[in-house]
């Protein structure tokens, strides 16, 4: 059974909400990314989404853009991203890691090499924000053969007929984007999120997580109530940004991931 399946099924059994932090590979550097990942798991993360740095992150807001710029300034690449996962796997063989990013680095590496390396690094899922299901056939087939999940987004603008189509091609979990906008914006229409989640629930048994705009315990709690879990990106990445100037120090690392610990506590009593 795939790691993602194992985790999501056991969470369902236990009534535990999935907490999925996102961070950018190589921000502030590769070894601290690995340390941050371990610290996130200690803080209560169930799955980690690791961002592949790309020069033109057109679906991301300023916080993640800056993180990507920090990472690229040190030359972090897709290859390094795999190395970070391999390194993480030395100590952690149970937490699923999902790579999230944009298509171009994969196109340039070549899909075959990408999948081969993902397998070698023991990656569990792949989410490419600018690869719509319609254009995904070739990569998804290759990932499927390697038993790596392909995760797609559903947005507030996604029509029901299209959502069905997306769900058919999704495995692992379904990612619902809480707002019309880029990462790091504020959720303004909680009611419509709730409606949309109900609509999606009727279409699939896949776990559904909500992301974009979850920035504190309160928003984590209110969104986790509606779904099987939440993704936390900009709020964590903002804190990692402050690590830049400081030396390597476990206290600083744990200081960043405290926000995940607090969110874990805030959503723990929900079911």
């Amino acid at each position, binding site marked *: 059974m795939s790691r993602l399946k194992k985790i999501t099924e056991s969470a369902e059994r236990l009534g535990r909400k999935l907490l999925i932090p996102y961070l950018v590979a190589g921000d502030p550097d590769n070894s601290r990314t690995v340390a941050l990942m371990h610290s996130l798991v200690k803080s209560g993360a169930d799955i980690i989404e690791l961002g592949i740095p790309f*020069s033109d992150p*057109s679906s991301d807001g300023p916080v993640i853009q800056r993180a990507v*710029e920090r990472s690229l300034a040190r030359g972090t*690449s897709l290859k390094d991203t795999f190395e970070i996962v391999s390194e993480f796997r030395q100590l952690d063989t149970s937490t699923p890691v999902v790579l999230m990013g944009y298509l171009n680095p*994969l196109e340039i590496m070549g899909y075959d090499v990408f999948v081969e390396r993902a397998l070698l690094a023991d990656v569990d899922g792949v989410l490419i924000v*600018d690869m719509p299901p319609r254009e995904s056939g070739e990569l998804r087939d290759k990932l499927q053969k390697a038993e790596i999940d392909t995760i797609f987004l559903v947005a507030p603008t*996604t029509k029901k007929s*299209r959502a069905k189509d997306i769900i058919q091609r999704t495995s692992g979990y379904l990612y619902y984007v809480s707002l*019309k906008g880029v990462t790091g*914006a504020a959720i303004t229409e909680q009611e419509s999120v709730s409606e949309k989640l109900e609509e999606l629930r009727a279409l699939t048994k896949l776990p559904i997580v909500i992301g974009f705009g979850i920035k504190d315990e309160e928003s984590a709690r209110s969104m986790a109530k509606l779904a099987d879990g939440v993704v936390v990106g900009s709020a964590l990445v903002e804190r990692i940004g402050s690590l830049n100037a400081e030396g390597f120090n476990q206290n600083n690392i744990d200081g960043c991931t405290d926000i995940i610990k607090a969110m874990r506590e805030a959503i723990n009593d929900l079911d």
Partner: protein
Amino acid sequence: MSRVKASSFDGPDESGHFGPYGGAFVGETLIAAVEELDAVYSKLGKDPEFWAKFDRDLKSYVGRPSPLYLAKRLTAHCGGAKIYLKREDLNHTGAHKVNNTIGQALLAKHMGKSRIIAETGAGQHGVASATVAARLGMECHVYMGAEDIVRQAPNVYRMKLLGANVISVDSGSRTLKDALNEALRDWASNVDNTYYIIGTVAGPHPYPKMVRDFQSVIGREARAQALDEFNRLPDALVACVGGGSNAIGLFYPFLEDDEVEMYGVEAGGKGIESGRHAAPLNDGVPGVLHGNRTYLMVDDNGQIKETHSVSAGLDYPGVGPEHSWLKDVKRVNYVSATDDEAMEAFHLLTRLEGIIPALESSHAVAYAMRLAEKMGASKKLVINLSGRGDKDIETVAKIEGITL
């Protein structure tokens, strides 16, 4: 040169592919918006009323048709083919860009959108967008790289005079590609009331097709004017290629005419071998950026490379997907001209013909001069003079160490 059958030029297919290129690679939030646009354009694009309205606007507001002008002194200077200039510089707002914004503004209005956004490099597309927005009483926001705001100051002021809000983009390389990213972010954030006017034949489907259709007025006119003027088609067409809208506009109506050779001139910057250029068709590989698969300037890790060109309007690491296809099927020759060659052509055309060309267009002039020299005196060559150079005089003065 081997040629594909004429029928292969009917692209794109239904989902926006020109061979392996094109498509609609955008985040899920924008998919509904591009699909809506595709549906609306598919319908309106077949409506003769729509095109009649478009033509009326081009005639009475833009001042079309633009002349096909025989450049006698330039021809004599080169001593070869007769050189004609398709005078897009004479359009209202000074470039071909307005052909597209007129068309897209009609769509925006039809779709009931109240807010227009655009990206701009040289500022010509920004000005053309601000112009149609003013005319229709719509709100307009233009994204422009911080670097380009400095390079193209007169156009920034023009946009402001026209009532547009010019937003400086400080991310990435602070040029056109980053302005495009920021416009995409704005669009995703304001998708309900916003129409995004992309300024070239790039972006997700249906933009490459739609912008081509609007710009094809250039080639349709040039074709009729050539037949009228010298009773046959030209032997060669030359246009500069940034995103590729003025080039495809001229080329498209001639694609099936085998006897017409075509040359797309990319920005050679400091020279292709220096790596400091903006010529993805000469020195790039296929990848995905800004909604489509196309030739790009990337490093080994798939990051988009910084580009260099003396002209802001050509300073883009990608190119419209149809050009990538036309390169692969060898229908169009993609060549380049350096900064220095473009500067030289800029001065030459100004002195020989009394026409100050845009630095973008100067690249086409530079290559065409080389080409004309090698062609016989009985041959005819058409250069797309995509814009006028008023916006560039500060840049040129600065390069030459002159303070205005």
